[in-house]
């Protein structure tokens, strides 16, 4: 009690002591507490969402910039050029696969025509479907020769089916006949000549074959590239 200040005319009572002698009772108000918690949560959420939005917007801007930057690093001209080359390769390969050599028909006729057979008309026609037919009008002295000629053509590799029709004796006493043959396109398929140092004109097709094979292998990834490009373009358009 030595530390208690002394007063002179105010009632004699220590300043540290509570009036009435007993400490005041503090009430815990649940509503106050809940209100404060809810309010603080609301404020924290508000501030958090504000900054979160700001961060997201910055992130989006950054991705947009990254896309523009990557897109600027390659030109559509490069892609078009590669696509064009790919298209040329594919088309060339298709055309080469269907390229026929009618010379093989003449080779066959030269090899297998009977000595006393004379052909008076020759027609070679390629159908739009890719198949081909050969029609010939011929004359000879005897029916037997026609039969022999028929056998010669029957097993000719360049002819898939051969039909002899219109066999008749003409006014001049010669036997006339017509041959219609469905060409075997497999046997007529063009085969590039194999030569070490060929002339340009003679090996153009073979060079094209080699080139297409090489390039086709080299650029086989272009299909994937197209898919990738398509995906990217879709996304860009969508955005």
């Amino acid at each position: 009690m030595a530390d208690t200040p002394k007063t002179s005319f105010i009632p004699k009572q220590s300043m540290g002591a509570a009036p009435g002698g007993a400490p005041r009772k503090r009430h815990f108000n649940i509503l106050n507490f809940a209100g404060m918690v809810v309010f603080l949560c609301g404020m924290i959420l508000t501030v958090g969402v504000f900054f979160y939005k700001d961060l997201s917007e910055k992130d989006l801007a950054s991705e947009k910039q990254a896309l523009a930057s990557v897109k600027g690093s390659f030109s559509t001209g490069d892609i078009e050029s590669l696509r064009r080359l790919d298209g040329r390769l594919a088309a060339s390969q298709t055309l080469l696969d269907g390229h026929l050599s009618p010379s093989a028909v003449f080779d066959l006729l030269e090899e297998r025509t009977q000595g006393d057979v004379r052909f008076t008309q020759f027609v070679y026609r390629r159908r739009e479907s890719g198949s081909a037919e050969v029609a010939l009008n011929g004359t000879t002295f005897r029916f037997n020769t026609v039969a022999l000629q028929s056998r010669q053509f029957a097993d000719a590799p360049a002819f898939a089916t051969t039909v002899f029709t219109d066999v008749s004796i003409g006014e001049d006493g010669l036997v006339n006949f017509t041959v219609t043959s469905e060409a075997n396109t497999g046997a007529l398929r063009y085969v590039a000549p194999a030569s070490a140092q060929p002339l340009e004109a003679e090996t153009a097709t073979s060079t094209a074959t080699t080139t297409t094979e090489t390039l086709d292998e080299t650029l086989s990834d272009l299909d994937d590239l197209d898919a990738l490009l398509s995906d990217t373009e879709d996304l860009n358009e969508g955005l």
Partner: protein
Amino acid sequence: MFHLFLPIAGIVIALALFFVYVQPTFQEVKLIEAETAQYREAVGHAAELERRINELKSRQSSIALSDLERLEAFLPDRVDDVALLMDLSALASEHGLTFGNLNEAQDGADLPAEDPEEFGAFDDEASAAKPYTPHDVTFAVSGSYAGFRSFLADLERSLMLAEVMSITFTESEGDALSFNMRVRFYSLKQPGT
């Protein structure tokens, strides 16, 4: 009564903030994030695309220019009719043949086809689906059989692909024969056609 006002006001303000600002903003952020994810995916694709393009370009540059030129000559962007005529005429004369009766048609309509459906006019629908355009040329060459054989052999091996669609000839008096031919040349379709 006053001591109830503050907590209730706090709750009301918090709820108002939540419904007026937090929730709509959060929805907005979700949309932004979805958009960001799409952009991120696009960036990934574009980066992959760039890598592949560079890879393909380097591979392309390793191919001999002469091979690429030959490929372009094999299937050109367009068929030069005048050059074609001159080439055919020169090739025929090289083999001792007389060249004539030239007739060109891109759609095959005016060709003297024997059976238009099978052998003549192009099928427009089928043709449209193909990456190349056919150019038919009919002509006649006159001369010896041997000359024609060598002419035909050279035509088959031509640098520019020449597909022989028809050959017709009949016997004639003397050595000279007249060979009627229809030959198809091709050009690569232009993008977008």
